[in-house]
């Protein structure tokens, strides 16, 4: 009886968070769905319901297709790079050596920089006129390159920048995962004459699956919603060629004054992120091994 009473009190503590969640997430989301069926321009007091027109347009719009492909590259590309590099860093830093804490801090440091600031810093690296990379090329007698003037190249560069900025998160997750693996397994494997590479493949990786699940989902969502770096470096250009769905939604809402269409894109993006993150979770659930 007392336990039930305690549970009720504990449930009460959820209420403030739930109320905030309903006001700031659920209500705007439902409103977003409603607006997606209108031709609202984003500020006028008048609008008309247009049925599923905005959703049908999503399938015909070349710019949405480009933004969708870019979003997948930002999301999957960043996830791949952050996890591979993050795991390598974690394995490297799992061994004891002088200056380990310093190296860990340096790798994690960019995570604390606002992505917009990171974008502006990187602009000085890749800009055509007086950019650091072009200055290095000039030193070796090579002509300068306008790195961001091609959409596909800009997408790759921004994926790399995003990956390098947030690789510290994966590193920390993997370091925590590695520290949770008992040394007993390695000792037993060593007695059986297992090489370090075999031990990594057959002991470390399977036991790291919970950490991989967390890191992949966090990185995937971060990559799929990439926004600030794009705004700082290309503003989605040239044309629409480096837009992600997030930046295209903002562009359509505020600059093109297509709030209804933008809301339809938002709903589409929600479904996409939900689908991809669920698929990833489902995949890793099957792989999970507990030590």
């Amino acid at each position, binding site marked *: 009886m007392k336990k039930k009473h305690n549970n009720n009190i504990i449930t009460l503590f959820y209420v403030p968070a739930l109320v905030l*969640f309903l006001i*700031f*997430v*659920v209500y*705007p*989301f439902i*409103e*977003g*769905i409603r*607006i997606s069926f209108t*031709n*609202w*321009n*984003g*500020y*006028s*007091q*008048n*609008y008309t319901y247009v049925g599923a027109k905005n959703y049908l347009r999503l399938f015909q719009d*070349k710019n949405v297709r480009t933004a969708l492909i870019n979003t997948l590259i930002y999301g999957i590309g960043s996830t791949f790079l952050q996890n591979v590099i993050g795991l390598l860093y974690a394995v490297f830093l799992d061994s004891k050596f002088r200056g380990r804490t310093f190296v860990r801090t340096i790798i994690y440091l960019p995570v604390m920089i606002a992505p917009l600031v990171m974008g502006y810093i990187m*602009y000085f690296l890749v*800009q*055509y*006129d007086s950019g650091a990379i072009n200055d290095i090329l000039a030193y070796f007698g090579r002509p300068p390159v*306008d*790195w*961001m*003037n*091609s959409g596909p190249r800009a997408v790759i560069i921004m994926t790399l920048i995003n990956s390098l900025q947030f690789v510290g998160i994966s590193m920390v997750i993997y370091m925590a995962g590695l520290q949770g693996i008992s040394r007993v397994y390695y000792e037993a494997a060593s007695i059986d004459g297992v090489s370090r590479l075999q031990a990594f493949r057959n002991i470390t990786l399977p036991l790291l699956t919970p950490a991989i699940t967390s890191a992949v*989902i966090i990185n995937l*969502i971060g990559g*799929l*919603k990439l926004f600030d770096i794009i705004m700082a470096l290309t*503003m989605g*250009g*040239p*044309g*629409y060629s480096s837009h992600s769905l997030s930046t295209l*939604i*903002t*562009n359509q809402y*505020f*600059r*093109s*004054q*297509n*709030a209804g*269409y*933008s*809301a339809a894109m*938002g*709903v589409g*993006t*929600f479904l996409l*992120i*939900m689908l991809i*993150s*669920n698929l990833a*979770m489902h995949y890793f*659930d099957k792989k999970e091994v507990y030590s």
Partner: protein
Amino acid sequence: MIIMKKLLSVLLTLTLVGSLCIGCSKAPEDNGSTSETKTSKSDSDKDGTTLTFVQHMSGVITDELQAVLDEFKAETGITVELSSPGSDIEEVMKTRMASNTLPDLWTTHGWSVARYGEYLRPMNDQAFVEHIVPSIKDLITGPDGNIYVLPIDADICGISYNATVLEEAGVDPESILTWEDFEVACEKIKAIGKVPLFFDGKDPLAFGQFFDFVAPTLYTNDEENNQREQFLDGSFDWEKWREVCEILERWTANGYLNTDALTADYMTACQSLGSGDAAFMLRNANVIVEAWTTNPDAKLGILPIPGKDSDNSRCVIGGERLAVGVWKDSPYIEEALQLIEYLSQPEVCSRLATVAGMPAGLDTAESDTGKLEPYYERVMSDDILTIPYFDREYLPSGMWDDLCVTGASIVAGNEGAIDDTIDQMRQSYEDKMAQK
């Protein structure tokens, strides 16, 4: 466990996208809900009144405006809370319009009639109206004859150029009467190894400016043969838009643009103009003022926009810039009008226009535009047309971005860029007209 994870996944995605959808907006309300204008407080209550004022400019003008508002407070006891969102003004104002919670006063950055007209109190009964300079009076007058803003300065926008580069290339700026002459000049400039035309395309508004400069000369300036009505009533054949796109494509192919036309930023552009690396920029005198900060000795000037052919005269683009309007539903209308009256005083208006580096918007005020004065006098002479910004006058609100982005696609050399541009302009025009 799995259910919890799925729930977690749904919540995460909801959080991410919910804010993107409409997090910053409020649903539009019915027209009938517009509140009536409330009465203002009596004079004795004015101490303690705070007006909200949103303005779009940045740099020294912001400091000067704040100083003027402080003096206004010392004189009247009315506090003015100045907010300067800079380039985010569009987002800020659209969000506030959506929720119908506008500031008491704001600068209209070129949109006093087409976008903000329905939210602003007409100023026709104010004393300053009869002193608005003729070059912009028509441009800020709505179809109903209403003027909604106090124009502190007048935007006069022509082609900014570096006179030293033109001299070196043997180009007389006064000889550039048509776009053909302009292209001849570009060839000569290219021949001496300089960049004829600099675009700071990192922000694609540079390409929107191209259309604002060139499109009127092709479609709307000619008194006898123009497409003005067609643009306004929606019957314009967008296939004709190909002509202006082809000019941009030709200039790109001919190498008149800087190599980094798609990625250069504004400061790089100003430096290039100031240092003499580039000859022309399709921008107003702001770039010149900025270029002088990097090279004070640079010989820079303003050129009228060439005509389509020798039968068409040259033009400059005019309009509002630092123009202040009052929200028609403001609870402090009387106080806001008091501020408008204060700002329209010749000495205050002169101060602000001088700092803005533009001619004053009222004939009672005089702006010291310094080294640019002879150029302003020249481009405001009778043989030069003053035209409105093309997109503000002939395109529905919201199409500016289409001009910017499609221009960038053409310069990027994307396959089928011109066809795509025509399709996008047509589609966007129809969408925007349907929103009205």
